[in-house]
């Protein structure tokens, strides 16, 4: 591709894999990528990791030709790359994915944690959607298939130059790893049929899950190992993880398939800690992550979708379980209860016993007890109207007692 000269060409490069439009800078003379920020004095340093020596040499040459003239260092293994990153600062890491011992994703996981401001680029021959997703989940900024033509090489150079030209660190934008559940991470690891060790920390607790060729072979935390440890680790709601190199010497202690294991664990989690595991725990801030134990126990009744307990004092906070908009619903429940009680007085119908709503997506019921407040429950529509009324009677009596 001609640079500069009489022609003024603006190249807008859409990276074929990451689907991001990377726009190289256009200098005043029309030449591509020749503009540098005035304050940019320090030379950019790029670390290139690939187990293929020939590729290393080729890409080193290509990158050294960039207008910003970065310093390019190379190494042929993930472990060596990490050692180099620890010994001196780099602006960018460009890594291959398929490498022996420590693959590119493992390198990325470690690097992202240890060097959060490093720009990460994947350059690989693997054209796999899953790898791409995993790489982006690790926080890479660009996922490139190894260029196969002169045009591709030019685009690659332009994109790298454009990235080097962007402000780094905290000046603008956000970087990070997507928030994924541990189940998602394990599934990704297993689906890729890879081998690794997941090192997970949760507060002061730590655990490891060994994955060999896409199967979970063992887990360990505290005093537990095997399936018991795996289920324990999966019950943790948050923390950090890193993907360590595989440990082929680890003996297999778990023989269930990973799908079966995840299913079992999910069921066990649902049965034992359903309420507190609710990802939809009250977003309104009334109950935060800790569901009230009283409501949590009531939530174990068949078909119960949500629970809401409103104290008589309107200024007191409401308790809720698995209800996202608890404040809005609480206001509506109060209003509805007042209306229906007032209606009962107009009809001289005696004491208000309860109200039930039946919908296609959800059923609900509300009842009140003097001195205790108003109680509202949501039910899954699999329950019949009679079942809703019966279940409500049970849980309301328990709550009121």
């Amino acid at each position, binding site marked *: 591709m001609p640079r500069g000269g009489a022609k003024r060409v603006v190249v807008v490069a859409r990276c074929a894999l990451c689907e991001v439009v990377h726009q190289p800078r256009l200098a005043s003379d029309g030449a591509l990528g020749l503009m540098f920020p005035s304050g940019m004095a320090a030379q950019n340093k790029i670390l290139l990791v690939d187990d293929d020596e020939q590729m290393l040499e080729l890409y080193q040459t290509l990158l050294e030709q960039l207008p910003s003239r970065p310093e390019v260092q190379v190494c042929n293994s993930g472990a060596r790359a990490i050692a180099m990153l620890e010994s001196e600062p780099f602006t960018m890491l460009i890594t291959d994915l398929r490498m022996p011992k420590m693959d590119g994703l493992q390198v990325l996981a470690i690097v992202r944690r240890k060097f959060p401001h490093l720009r990460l680029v994947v350059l690989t021959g693997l054209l796999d959607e899953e790898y791409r997703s995993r790489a982006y989940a690790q926080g890479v900024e660009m996922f490139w298939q190894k260029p196969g033509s002169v045009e591709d090489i030019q685009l690659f150079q332009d994109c790298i130059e454009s990235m080097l030209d962007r402000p780094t660190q905290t000046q603008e934008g956000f970087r990070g790893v997507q928030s994924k559940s541990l189940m998602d991470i394990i599934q990704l690891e297993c689906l890729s049929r890879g081998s690794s060790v997941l090192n997970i920390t949760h507060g002061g607790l730590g655990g490891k899950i060994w994955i060999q060729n896409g199967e979970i072979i063992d887990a360990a935390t505290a005093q537990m190992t095997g399936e018991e440890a795996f289920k324990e680790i999966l019950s943790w709601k948050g923390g950090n993880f890193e993907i360590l190199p595989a440990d082929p010497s680890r003996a297999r202690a778990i023989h269930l398939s990973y799908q079966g294991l995840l299913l079992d664990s999910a069921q066990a989690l649902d049965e034992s800690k359903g309420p507190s595991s609710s990802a939809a725990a009250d977003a309104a801030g009334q109950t935060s992550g800790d569901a009230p134990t009283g409501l949590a126990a009531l939530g174990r009744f068949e078909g119960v979708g949500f629970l809401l307990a409103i104290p008589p004092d309107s200024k007191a906070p409401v308790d809720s379980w698995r209800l996202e908009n608890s404040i809005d619903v609480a206001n509506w429940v109060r209003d*509805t209860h007042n209306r229906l009680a007032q*209606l009962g007085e107009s*009809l001289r119908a*005696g004491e*208000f016993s309860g*109200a*039930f*709503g039946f919908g296609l997506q959800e059923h609900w019921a509300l009842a009140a007890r003097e001195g205790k407040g108003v109680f509202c429950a949501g039910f899954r529509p699999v329950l019949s109207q009679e079942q809703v009324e019966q279940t409500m009677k049970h849980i309301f009596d328990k709550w009121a007692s």
Partner: protein
Amino acid sequence: MGVLRKLRAGKSVLERRPSGAFTVDSQGNLVSSTVPQRVPEALTRQIGWHILAVFKGAAAVRLPFSELRVRYETFDVAAREMRGGAIIFLSPKPAPRPPAAS
């Protein structure tokens, strides 16, 4: 005689509770009714207005439903949402039987 007069006076206080069904449009206007005429129209309007408010309030908090049952000690109210309006059923419960003398 005085005793009978008192009994008659007491009996006249007991009113038969309304029964039947009526429909209201989305504005709460009475459209049709099988509720006896002795029941004041203002009362049926009031019932309709409250029921519609419950339906609308529920939809506003993302708890949409189409059928409502309200239980009172001596009365049931059932309602079904109809294109923004509602059909409402008023059903007095039979008075509880006195315990049989042994």
